[in-house]
C-alpha cells in the first residue's frame, strides 16, 4: 500500500533562517507531488506541484522553492524565512486524480 511521510510535524524558526521540509512517498512510482499551505485554518493554497524528477511548477510567487531530487521525494525550502511564511504545510501525492495527504507541518516563524 502507498504511504506518505512528511516531517517535521512542528517547527519554530527565527526570521531569516533557512527552511527545509521533506516529504517522501512509498509504494508507488512517478507520482504527482504537491505542496500546499493552509493559513489560519482555512483554505489550501497550492504552492508547487511536480510531475517528475526535476520538474517543478510554481503556482504563486513567494519566498519558497521546491525540489524533487528523487522520484518519490519532494522538498520545500527557503533561504530566509519571513514572518508571513508561518502556516500549516501539507504535502500530497495524486493517483488517478485522487490526492493523498501527509500529516502536515505546522511552521511558526518568530
Amino acid at each position: 500500500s502507498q504511504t506518505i511521510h512528511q516531517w517535521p510535524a512542528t517547527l519554530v524558526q527565527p526570521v531569516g533562517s533557512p527552511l527545509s521540509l521533506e516529504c517522501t512517498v512509498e509504494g508507488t512510482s512517478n507520482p504527482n507531488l504537491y505542496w500546499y499551505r493552509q493559513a489560519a485554518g482555512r483554505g489550501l493554497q497550492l504552492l508547487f506541484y511536480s510531475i517528475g524528477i526535476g520538474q517543478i511548477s510554481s503556482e504563486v510567487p513567494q519566498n519558497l522553492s521546491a525540489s524533487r531530487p528523487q522520484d518519490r521525494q519532494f522538498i520545500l525550502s527557503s533561504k530566509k524565512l519571513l514572518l508571513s511564511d508561518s502556516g500549516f504545510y501539507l504535502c500530497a501525492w495524486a493517483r488517478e486524480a485522487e490526492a493523498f495527504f501527509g500529516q502536515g507541518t505546522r511552521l511558526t516563524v518568530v
Partner: protein
Amino acid sequence: AQTVTQSQPEMSVQEAETVTLSCTYDTSESNYYLFWYKQPPSRQMILVIRQEAYKQQNATENRFSVNFQKAAKSFSLKISDSQLGDTAMYFCAFTPGSNYKLTFGKGTLLTVNP
C-alpha cells in the same frame, strides 16, 4: 483558471439529523473530478467522496452523498444521520483530468451538536 466557492463558512447540525454543504465551481474543462475532503481537528486531510464529471450518477459513500449538477456547476455534500465525529472542516475540491492540480474552496466548518 478554475475556482471553487463554498458560500457557508460555518454550519451546525444536531446529531442524527441531515445537513447539506454547498459548493459551486467554475471551469472550462470538459473532463474533471470533484471531491469533498474532511479535515478534523487533527488536521489530517481525509477524502470523503469523489465524483467524475462524466458520470451522471451521484456518488454515495455510506452516510455521505453528493448532488452533482453539471450544468449548474454545483456539487453539494449531504451528510445523513450526522455523528459527533463528523465535526470538522469540509473542503470542496476540483481537479482537471489533465494535470491533477487540486483547487480547494475555503472550507465549511461543520459542528455536530449532541
